[in-house]
């Protein structure tokens, strides 16, 4: 078999995406069901409003940062597909960054390419970009932040982190693990932190990791405040506040309500993958008590906290688990959220001891099976008008069970490998 080079994989992915965008144009013009994501029309309308000097929030259901409408302004004067090309380019960039991160961590070329293909040829992801969904931009930013951290560039990482939280809010869950990983033990003055190489994943890494855990944990409490952590915190916070403040200055409460508060307080009674949807619908006529809100927040919060405390030094792995858990326990889950963890999945595959035969395949089929099962009941409710609320809710429970099954298997088969090598105990004096 001819050797697959990363360059050819990327080229093929690019051609594939262009073909899909062109096909989408054709389907939109000729078929009753459109290929283009409904949100893409929302973005485009908002961008057109902005281009004509109006507020993008005049378009109802536009619930994003004004930056997104700004990026899509060429939709109205260049070409309506501009945004799709932009999103698909970010989608390719994600593939490129995955490959880059894996190379930096010493993963062999072939394995890096195969891992990147898990993103580039994932039907979930290539359709999302070509249908005009903005998530690939967010994904590429997250991966770029990882690279900045790996290259000891906390200033740039902080800037992009502030920006990405302004854009999409959910990456706020990554704040704590990032702060933890900016461990003074791993960072020394005028010296880049040493990355633990993939080849050490089974032998020395266990030793390193155990020491990293003891010292890292101890260190976390003893020298909580370090130069890098402070810089990262202040800079990312400032970027977030400046962008949010500027948007508020330009578009007022409309922006704050639609782009920020809506996402923070969103409870959706309409059917979605979340286990909470039916409960919310059944209680929509009365306000939820603080106790109820707290109880529903507790599982999500606890899982996040434990995952961070246990896995933060292996940052890509920690971020992946956090994202899967965050989505699985969220009050609203739509299919586009899956992209948030799909972009991190290739980053953990080389450290997984799970064989595709048969455990790997079992995980994939359980996850896809549970989702297809849910979609079947969803179809019966939405498109056939059957009263299957109860069955659909049970399908949501099954989907959470599937997510849990996959997470447990992924954790148990993972070879823990901290991102950075702790330099030595003397580095405690650093910072």
């Amino acid at each position, binding site marked *: 078999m001819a050797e697959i080079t990363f360059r050819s994989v990327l080229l093929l992915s690019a051609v594939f995406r262009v073909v899909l965008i062109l096909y989408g144009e054709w389907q939109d013009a000729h078929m009753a069901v459109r290929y283009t994501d409904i949100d893409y029309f*929302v973005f485009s309308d908002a961008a057109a409003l902005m281009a004509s000097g109006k507020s993008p929030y005049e378009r109802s259901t536009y619930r994003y940062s004004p930056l997104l409408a700004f990026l899509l302004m060429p939709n109205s004067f260049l070409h309506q597909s501009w945004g799709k090309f932009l999103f698909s380019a970010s989608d390719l960039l994600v593939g490129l960054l995955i490959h880059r991160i894996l190379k930096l961590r010493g993963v062999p070329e072939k394995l890096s390419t195969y891992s990147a293909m898990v993103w580039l040829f994932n039907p979930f992801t290539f359709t999302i970009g070509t249908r005009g969904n903005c998530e690939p931009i967010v994904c590429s930013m997250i991966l770029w932040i990882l690279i900045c951290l790996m290259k000891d560039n906390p200033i740039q990482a902080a800037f992009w982190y502030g920006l990405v939280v302004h854009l999409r809010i959910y990456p706020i869950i990554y704040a704590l693990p990032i702060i933890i990983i900016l461990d003074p033990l791993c960072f020394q003055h005028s010296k880049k932190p040493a990355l633990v190489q993939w080849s050490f994943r089974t032998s020395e890494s266990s030793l390193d990791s*155990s020491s990293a855990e003891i010292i890292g944990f101890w260190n976390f409490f003893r020298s909580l405040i370090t130069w890098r952590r402070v810089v990262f915190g202040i800079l990312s916070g400032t970027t977030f506040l400046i962008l949010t403040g500027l948007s508020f200055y330009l578009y007022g409460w409309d922006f704050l309500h639609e782009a920020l508060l809506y996402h923070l307080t969103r409870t959706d009674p309409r059917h979605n993958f979340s286990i909470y949807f*039916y409960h919310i619908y059944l209680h929509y006529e009365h306000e939820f008590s603080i106790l109820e809100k707290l109880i529903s927040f507790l599982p999500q919060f606890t*899982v996040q906290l434990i995952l961070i405390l246990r896995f933060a030094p292996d940052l890509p792995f920690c971020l992946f688990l956090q994202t899967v*858990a965050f989505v699985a326990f969220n009050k609203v889950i739509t299919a586009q959220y899956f992209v948030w963890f799909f972009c991190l999945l290739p980053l953990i595959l080389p450290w997984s001891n799970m064989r595709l035969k048969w455990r790997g395949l079992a995980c994939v089929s359980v996850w896809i099976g549970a989702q297809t099962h849910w979609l079947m009941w969803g179809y019966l409710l939405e*498109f056939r008008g*059957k009263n299957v609320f109860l069955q659909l809710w049970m399908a949501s429970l099954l989907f959470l069970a599937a*997510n849990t099954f996959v997470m*447990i298997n992924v954790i148990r088969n993972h070879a823990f490998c901290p991102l950075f090598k702790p330099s030595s105990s003397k580095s405690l004096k650093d910072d």
Partner: protein
Amino acid sequence: MQCVSVIFLISIKSFVLASIYGQTCSLDEYIAESYFKKYHSFIEREFDNFIANKIPLGSYKLLEDKNLVTVKSISRNVIGEGSHRWLSSSMSLKFPHELKRELTASSCEVVVIERLPSGVFTDPFELQHFVQRGVFTDAAVFGDTNLELPSFRSNQTVVEIHMSIDSKVLLRDEDESEVILKVPLHARYQPLGHGFSRVEFGAPNIFTCCSSTEQDVTKKLCQPIPTSLIPEKKASPLMWEIPCGNKEHAAVVSAVTFGFAISTALLIVLTSVSYSRQ
């Protein structure tokens, strides 16, 4: 010729009326728009009054004594399955033979004003998509346009759709033609109940309108279709049964939901804690 003089007389009448009320002729694109400018929210009786009395004030004028296009019969239906359906009004139109030439020159359209019950909504952006594709000449939604609220938090909306009568139809020899106007509808989440919640549609207001240009001002002359033609609400109620949540599920659903969330969270926590980093 007679028709033109009627148009002229009516335009004088509306000018006088507008002067009396101290209003200049506004150029509202929609009949319902004039109503919502005045009343802000939809009240069935007010709206009926408005349709009956106030239209002449706007750029729309009611044509009472002369028939331009008449409607012979109407049949209405809710078609489709599931949460996304169509409210279809099928009308058979008749054109007076002697007026055909004038009708071809002035563009004529059918205007349907539907009052939607609070359990359903129509998406204004979807309607615009139809306008862009030339299915409708104009379409707008007035009233509560928040698409995402369940029905118990939303109000009635009014949809106005204009569909042009193809001039090709008028050029044909026949004096009759069939027009089918379909409004795309979506179900909101219904109040809790048992099984299905029933949404009933009231009678629409249907007009046939033709535009005429006088002294560089384009006016639309509209003629309401006699309500006697519109199928009786009581005799053949037009309805849609939408699945609704069952209140009796509430206790079990809440308990199992939280129990399940807590146990799966616990499983993940235990796996993480017992994970050995070897």
